[in-house]
């Protein structure tokens, strides 16, 4: 399921990143790659604050929807 559907507070594993290449590279640098666990800290009209590898990242709805996750 897309990350946008993950309930805040729950943890999941990133499966696939469907963003375009340049965005994907940037996300990799920030720790967002398949196999990494991610959790949603808070949500504001679709935009998310997530926790990845101990840091907090803000993602807009569009890019969050391109990350497919799997509940662990």
């Amino acid at each position, binding site marked *: 399921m897309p990350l946008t559907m993950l309930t805040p507070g729950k943890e999941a594993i990133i499966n696939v990143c469907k963003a375009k290449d340049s965005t994907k590279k940037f996300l990799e640098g920030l720790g967002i790659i*398949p196999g990494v666990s991610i959790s949603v800290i808070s949500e504001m009209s679709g935009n998310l604050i997530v926790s990845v590898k101990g840091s907090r990242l803000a993602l807009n709805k569009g*890019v969050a929807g391109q990350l497919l996750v799997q509940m662990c």
Partner: protein
Amino acid sequence: MHYKFALVGNPNCGKTTMFNEITGSTQYVGNWPGVTIEKKEGKAKKFKEDIKIIDLPGIYSLSPYSMEEIIARDYILDEKPDVLINIIDATNIERNLYLTTQVIELGIPVVVALNMMDAVEAKGDQIDIRALEKAFGVPIIGTSANKGKGINELLHKALEVAESSALTHGTSACKFYDEQIEKCIGEIENTIVPSLTVKAQNPRWTALKLLEGDEKAKEKLNVSAKVLDQIKVYQEKLEKVYDNDMETIIADNRYRFISKSISKAVKKKSAGGELTVSDKIDKVVTHRILAIPLFLAVMLGIFQITFGAIGSFTIDWVDVLINETIAGTVSGWLEVSGAAPWLHDLVVNGIIGGMGSMLVFVPQIMILFFFLAILEDSGYMSRAAFVMDRLLRKLGLSGKSFIPMLMGFGCSVPAIMSARTLENEKDRRLTIILTLFMSCGAKLPVYALFVSAFFAKDQAWVVFSIYVLGIIVAVFSGVILKKTVLKGETAPFVMELPPYRIPTFKGLSIHMLDRGKDFVKKAGTIIFAAAVVIWFAQSFSFSLQMVEDPGNSIMGTFGKIIAPFFAPLGFGDWKSSVALLTGFVAKEVVVATLGILHGLGEVGEDTASLAATLQTSFTPLKAYAFMAFTLLYMPCVAAFGTIKREMNSWKWTLFTVGYQTGVAWIVAFIIYQGGRLLGFN
């Protein structure tokens, strides 16, 4: 010996704090990703060797994404510093080490500074530095830059590395990838790399970049189609084995290596997963209902303090100091010493009057910058960007554009430059254009002068409405430009949110005093020169005769020519027209010119009497149209130069300036003519 050490690391990992500690300089340190947008150089103090330190913009990886990342990467690859000091935020070690793996692969000697160790200890976590050194094959030093700890040790180690590598040309032998990938890298290194037309300085790195399919590297190496086909065989083979694309495989391998090394070396006291203090604050600050009201309340609060009672108190105080105490004393001296009337006029009226009319606003501008610095240092800035993303997306921009726009309330020059954090060119151009509609600090004296003359009762609200007008015009411009000349897809918003921090007194005062100093320096140089030129141009005619009526002076003659352009906007008198024109030098000069033309600085004259004089040629409606025009029209020469440099195109620079002035004219026209139709005066 001369050495060059470059500081590289993730955004917000403490690079600039480290830079300041090493070099003894006071570069501004903020709490949001992207504070350092240009590389900065300094010399290491306390060392007899000549060591140059270069502070690079923060980057997450060496795959260039935004402009600042390109600046950092190009510097490392082209300038070849002797040692790369890789600074790591030890509280966020796993993510930070990703860049480290890439940095080590470059083959330039690396020393790692494990920074913010004090925060790690405070949390009760433990890091086995020796174990990490062994895993990564580079020296690692624990530091706490904000407390000055470990800096000397770090520099000594870097120096040692620089001296020994000068002899050995040491490249790291560290291998981060699993067997299959290492085998491919090895094969490419041994068979393909030697056949390249451009000789590779670091064969392993070249092989890796070819395997990764790095566009920049391919371009630089001038790779032939035949070589690309050979590489493709390897890529397809690995992609099949791992069932993923090549880039992800490499990134995944790096992270795996890091996780493995960390699991042995780092012992965390708490398992993580619970909400931190920052998370709890974020729950409120980015709450779906509270976020925007909270943001507006913060902004309104800042305006009330800056332009309300406290702000105007400082104005009155400085006004008395300059226009009564200083002007009176100097005037007295000149009379006693029997100076010629023209000299008396130049000094008292031209210089003191011209500079004084803007200097009175220095404390107020410093108050504004004080609050902007709090927003930056606390970490609220990036949250505000997050909160505003959805709104900005409707204009075709991302939340990242918000930071330049907010900084635009201070000074357009750094604001325009901070648009570099935007990754796509159209977004960056649009952001620059819209940032210019955010009223900069230098325009404040103009509003302050006019509101005190015409809107004495509601000063803060009227000024606030001008700022809001700027935002509204920016909104409309955004929608229009995005649909016409700057069409394109908006980049996604991805931004790291640093933990909240209580701003330090030192940080805030550096920021505030820097700004105050800039402003006073500007008054002493550009505005001083402008005041002298303006005084001359309004005192002499074209035949260089001193004139009684300034209307016959050089400036008067010229002003009368351009005045009709402004007549439909309500201020067609030559003095106002000329004042606006001189605003190109710097916006404060508008006030200085009005001050000189209306005889401010003469004994007994102060800002209040300039206001009284203005009431003879303006009405409240005209004054409002004048302020609106000042808000929107073309930027000052410093901003103009910055736009040219950042847009890197004359066409776009001229478009920007023309667009602004056109919009300014139309808006002022609507305000004045519309206001008259509605019966205002």
